[in-house]
């Protein structure tokens, strides 16, 4: 089984976990990307959203499980074929929710380019933006290193 281990800086990443946990709680009952489903029968729409929500919650649990004992003792997180896909999806869910809840003051263009003056941000926004970047880095790591053997195409 292909497995990638990454050593993270505990002092940098640990404070971001509070943000991830808080937003994950927020997402328990809300889709990260609300979808337009006007064309569906109302009953079918309810089941559709319920299934998306259940999958989103499973994915978020996989992301939170990444930061267990090995992370807090060694700073190490590990990706393999069992957690890669859920974690990539969960990172997107949290990033979408961060944009909605914590990064509204930043323009979409700034978020896309990452061209932001960190010193000009207040503490809450700075932490949220660092979390946004960290989760993007996790996604890039998984996509680059765990190729089609794990993220099957």
């Amino acid at each position, binding site marked *: 089984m292909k497995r990638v281990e990454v050593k993270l800086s505990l002092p940098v990443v640990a404070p971001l976990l509070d943000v991830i946990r808080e937003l994950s709680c927020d997402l328990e009952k809300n889709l990260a990307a609300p979808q*337009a489903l006007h064309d569906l029968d109302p009953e079918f729409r309810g089941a*559709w959203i319920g299934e998306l929500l259940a999958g989103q919650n499973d994915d978020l649990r996989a992301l939170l499980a990444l930061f267990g004992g090995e992370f807090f003792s060694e700073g190490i997180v590990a990706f393999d074929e069992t957690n890669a896909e859920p974690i990539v*999806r969960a990172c997107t869910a949290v990033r979408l929710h961060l944009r909605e809840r914590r990064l509204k003051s930043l323009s979409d263009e700034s978020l896309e380019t990452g061209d932001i003056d960190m010193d000009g941000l207040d503490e809450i926004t700075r932490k949220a933006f660092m979390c946004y970047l960290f989760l993007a880095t996790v996604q*890039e790591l998984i*996509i680059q290193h765990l190729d089609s053997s794990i993220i099957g*195409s």
Partner: protein
Amino acid sequence: MLNDPVNLMSYVVMVFKKVLGFDETKARRHMLEVHEQGRSVVWTGVRETAEAHVFSLQQWHLTAVLEPDEAR
């Protein structure tokens, strides 16, 4: 498919390959179309299959909509 400012280009390409079975070139073409024009028609065909694709894309948090053919 509709554009959003959050998802990474590499992520969108990966999802198109995985969900829609696109090769790298086709996936990148559609990703760029979404990015530059705001939307891209990524699949057309019978409604049941279209619904399945929309659901899968939404599981990956992409903004996918189902439209009747005459709407385009």
